C-alpha cells in the first residue's frame, strides 16, 4: 500500500461518482480531496501542492479540458488523469496530447485506477525531483562568471577550445582554464552531464 505525502484531487460534477472515488482512494491509502467543479478546485488548489488530479472530462461550467489548459497556462504541471464516458474517446485523446497522464473510461476497475494514479504520482514525484535538480543546477549556474557562462554556452554547442578561443579573442589556454572552472562549479563529471544540466535549466525535456 502506497503512502505518500501526495494528494489525489478529484473533480467530478456527479456527486455519487466523486463521493465513491474519494472513498475508494482513501481505502487505498491515498489522501483524497473532492470538488464538484473546476472552479471549486481552483479556489482550493495551491500549485505547489504535491499530487495528481482525477478530472471528469465533461462538466457544466468549465470542462475538464478547459481546466487542463488553464493549469498549463499558469505553469502548473500537476499530472491529470481524465475520467471519460462512452463516446468521449476523441476528447480523451486530445487531452493526452495536451499532456494528460492518461484517461480511464467509466465504469472502471479499481486496479485500473490505482495503476494510473500510481503512474501519475510517480510522474509527480519525478517532476518534483526534476524541479529540485533544475533549481540546483540554476544555483550552480548562478555561481558562474559571465565569461564562464559564455564559455559554457560555446562548450555545450560542441565547439573545440581552439574555436572558442578564436571566437572570444582569447588564448586557448584561457579557454581551458574557464572550461575547467565551469566543470568544477557545475559539478559536471562529463561534457554530456553538462549538456543535460544546461537543457534542464532551459526547461527542455532531455532528448
Amino acid at each position, binding site marked *: 500500500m502506497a503512502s505518500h505525502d501526495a494528494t489525489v484531487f478529484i473533480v467530478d460534477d456527479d456527486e455519487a461518482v466523486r463521493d465513491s472515488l474519494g472513498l475508494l482512494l482513501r*481505502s487505498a491509502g491515498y489522501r483524497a480531496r473532492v470538488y464538484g467543479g473546476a472552479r471549486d478546485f481552483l479556489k482550493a488548489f495551491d500549485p505547489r501542492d504535491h499530487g495528481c488530479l482525477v478530472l471528469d472530462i465533461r462538466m457544466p461550467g468549465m470542462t475538464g479540458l478547459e481546466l487542463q489548459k488553464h493549469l498549463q497556462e499558469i505553469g502548473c504541471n500537476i499530472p491529470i488523469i481524465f475520467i471519460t464516458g462512452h463516446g468521449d474517446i476523441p476528447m480523451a485523446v486530445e487531452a493526452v496530447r495536451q499532456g494528460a497522464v492518461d484517461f480511464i473510461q*467509466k465504469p472502471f476497475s479499481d486496479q485500473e485506477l490505482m495503476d494510473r494514479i500510481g503512474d501519475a504520482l510517480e510522474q509527480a514525484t519525478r517532476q518534483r525531483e526534476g524541479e529540485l535538480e533544475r533549481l540546483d543546477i540554476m544555483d550552480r549556474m548562478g555561481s558562474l562568471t559571465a565569461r564562464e557562462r559564455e564559455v559554457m554556452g560555446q562548450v555545450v554547442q560542441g565547439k573545440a577550445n581552439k574555436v572558442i578561443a578564436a571566437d572570444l579573442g582569447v588564448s586557448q589556454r584561457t579557454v581551458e582554464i574557464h572550461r575547467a572552472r565551469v566543470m568544477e562549479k557545475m559539478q559536471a563529471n562529463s561534457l554530456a552531464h553538462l549538456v543535460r544540466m544546461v537543457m534542464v535549466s532551459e526547461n527542455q525535456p532531455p532528448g
Partner: protein
Amino acid sequence: MPQDDINSAERVAESRLAALLNATPDGIVLIDAYGRIEAFSPGAERIFGYSAPEIIGQNVSRLMPAPFRQAHDSYIARYQRTGEARFMLAPRDVEARRKDGSTFPAEVSVGRVDSEPMPSFIGIVRDNSARRAAEDHLRRVEANLSTAQALAHVGSFEGRWPEDGEYFWSDEVFRIVGLEPGSAVPPPAEFAARFVHPDDRAQVAATFAAAMEETSGGGELEYRIVRPDGELRNVHTIFQIVEDPRGGALRMQGTMLDVTQRREAENALRHERDRAQRYLDVVDVLIIVVDCNGRIQLVNRMAAELLRYSEAELIGRDFIATCQSAADAGRSRELFNRAMQGNLQGFELLEEPVLTREGHTRRVRWRNQLLRDDEGQITGVLSAGEDVTEQRATEAQLRQAEEELRLIFRRAPVGMTTLAAAHEVDGHYLSVNEALCNMLGYSEGELLSMSVRDITHPDDMDVTLQNFRELLSGSDAVRYQKRYFRKDGSIVHALVHHSLVSDALGRPIIIISQILDRSDVVEAELEARQQRERLAHVARLGTLGEMAAGIAHELNQPLTAIANYTQACQRLIGAGAMDAAELGDVLGRVTAQARRAGDVIHRLRAFVRRHTTERRARDVNELIYEILPLVELDARAHEVDLQLELDESVPSVQADGVQLQQVLLNLTRNAVEAMSSSGGHGHGRRLVIRTGVRNEDEIEVAVQDTGEGVPAALRAQLFEPFFTTKAEGMGLGLSLSRSICESHGGTLRYDAAEHGGSIFRIWLPTAPEEE
C-alpha cells in the same frame, strides 16, 4: 071661365104639381091646419120610408123625433089659437124620424097655402144626412190632420207667391218655431231674421230664389231654426209652387217637418254603427253580412281589404257574383239558396275560394249564421271568415314534404331511425329503414321491438346517452361515432347524426338518426393508426439510439459509483479497516445508485414500449416534466444548457401523451444534435423548451436551439419523409412528428430563430372544457 075650362085648368095644375112632386128629390109634405098630412110626395116616401097612403091623414108629428114632436104640436095649437105661424122663414135644420124610427138631419122649409076654410101648410124636407156626414168627415179630417201634424211634427204653410205676407201656418208650424198657435204669422223676411239659424239663412234664401226663377216646381231644404227661447230645431221643408185654381195667381204650399229627433237618432245610430264597424274592423276575422238575396249589406275592413275593394264598393253588390269565379258560383248559389230555405247542410261551415278585385284567388273558411227578423223570417246571412290561403298552401307543401321525407327515409342509402323524444328518450324505435336493417342484419319487426341499448356497444352507451341529453337540452343536431352490434355479434363502426324535431312551441317530438356504416373507414383508420404506431415505435427506438451516448453516460454514472463503493469496501474490509456501521452506510449509497440506474432504464422502457393510442386531456407541461430526465441527459451528454420557459396557465390538450412526448423528444434530440455538430465547446449551446397560449383555441410548444439553423434551401423538404442531414438518421423523425401533430388537429412548423438557430413550433387545439 067655364067650369070645364076651370076643371081643365085645375087638372093641368094638378098634373104639373104631381110631376113636380114626383121629380123633386126633396120630400114634399102637405098638412092641414091641424097637422094632418094631406099629401106625401114620392120624394118624401124615399126619405121617410112611408108610403103615401099609409101616412096620409096621420099627424105630421109622426115624422119627428120626440122633442120636436111635442114642440110641433104646440106650434100647431098656438097657430090655431093666434093664427101666428112663426116658423115660416128660411129653411132650418131639424131632426126627422123615419118609419123605422131612425132619425136623420133634415132641412125643412115650410110654406102656407091659403085655402078655404082653413089654410094648409106645405113642407119641403131635404135629407141632410150625406151633407152632415161629409161635414163631420171634413171636421174629423181637419182634426186628424192637426193631430197628425202635431204628432209627426209636420206643419204646413201656404201663401201667395211671390210672397206678400199673407200666410197661413198650421198649428204645428207655430209649435215647431216655438210660437203659440194662432199668433200672427211673421212676414218671410222677419221669419228669416228671427228664426232661421244665421249659418243657414243664405242657403234658405238661395233655395227660394231658385224656386222663384223657375216659377213653378218647388224645392226641398233642411235648415236649423232658433226658437225664441234659444233651442235649436232641425227642420226639413218641402214646398211647391202651384197655380191657384181660383185664378191665375201662383201659390206656394209647403210642409215643415221637425227632424231634430230624427237627426239625433240618426247621429246616435251612426255612432252605434261606427262603433260596431270599428269592432268589426278590429276583430281578426272577415265579416260579411248579406241579405236574403245575397247582396252585401255589411263588410268589415278586413274583408274589404282581402277582397281589394272599398267598403262602399261592396255594399249592395251580389257577393257570389262579385267574389266568386264562374266555376264556383253555381254551387255557392245553390248552397245559399238552400240555406235561405232553412236547409243548412254544408252551409254553416264552408271553405271556398273567393276572388279578389284583381282576380286572385284566396281560400276562405266561412262560418255562416242565418239572420232572422222578429217573426223568425230569414233575412240574410252573417259570415265570419278566416283567410286560410297560406295555411292551406303550407299544409299542401307539408303533405308533399312529408311524402318525400317518407320516401327518403325508406329508401335512404344510410340507416335511419326515429325515436320518440316527447319526454325522456326511452330508446325504442318508432321506425327504422331498410338500410339499417341491412346494415345490422335484423328485420324491421325485430328492430322495432328492440331499443337503442340492445344494439349499442356497451362502451358506447354513455356517449350515446350523453348525446341524447345534449340534443334535448338545445342542440339542433349532434354527430358522433359509435359501435353497433350486428345480429351475428360483429361490430359496425358507425357515424351517427341525430337531429331533433320539435313542435312550434319548441317541445321535442322525435329524434331522427342517420347511421352511416363506416366500418371500412374505421378499420382502415385503425390499420393506419397501427401502422403509424409501429412506425412511431421504430422512430422512438431510433431516437433513443441516437441518444445512446447520453444514455450510456447516464447509466455509467451510477454504475461507476457502485463499482467504486464496492471496491472501496473490499479494500477496507480486506485491511480490517471497516466496521459494520460504515459498511452499512456505504451499501446504502450503493443501493441508491442501483435505483438511479434502474430509473433510467425504467424511463427508457416506458418511452420505448409499444402502446395503443389513448387520447385524453393532458397538460403539456406535465408531459414535458415526464420526459425531462431524458432531455436533460441528452443535453448534458452534449454540454447543452437546458432552459424551460413553461407557462403554467396553458389549457389542456386532447392528446396521446406518449406520441406528443415522442414529438418533443425528437425535437430536443434534433436541437441537441444541431448544436453539438456545430463544433466547439459547450459555451453558448442553449436548448429552450417554451409553452404558451397562442390564442383562445390553441397552445404552442416551442423548441428552440442555438445551432446553425436549417439552410433556407432545405426548409421545404424538412418535413418530407426520408429527408435527413444526419449521417445515420432515417429521415422519419420530423415527418412522423408532423403527422402526429396533425392527427391531434394541430401542426408542426419551422421558424428560423432571430440570432441563428431553429425554432420548431407545435400548435395544438385546446381540449374542450370538461364540466
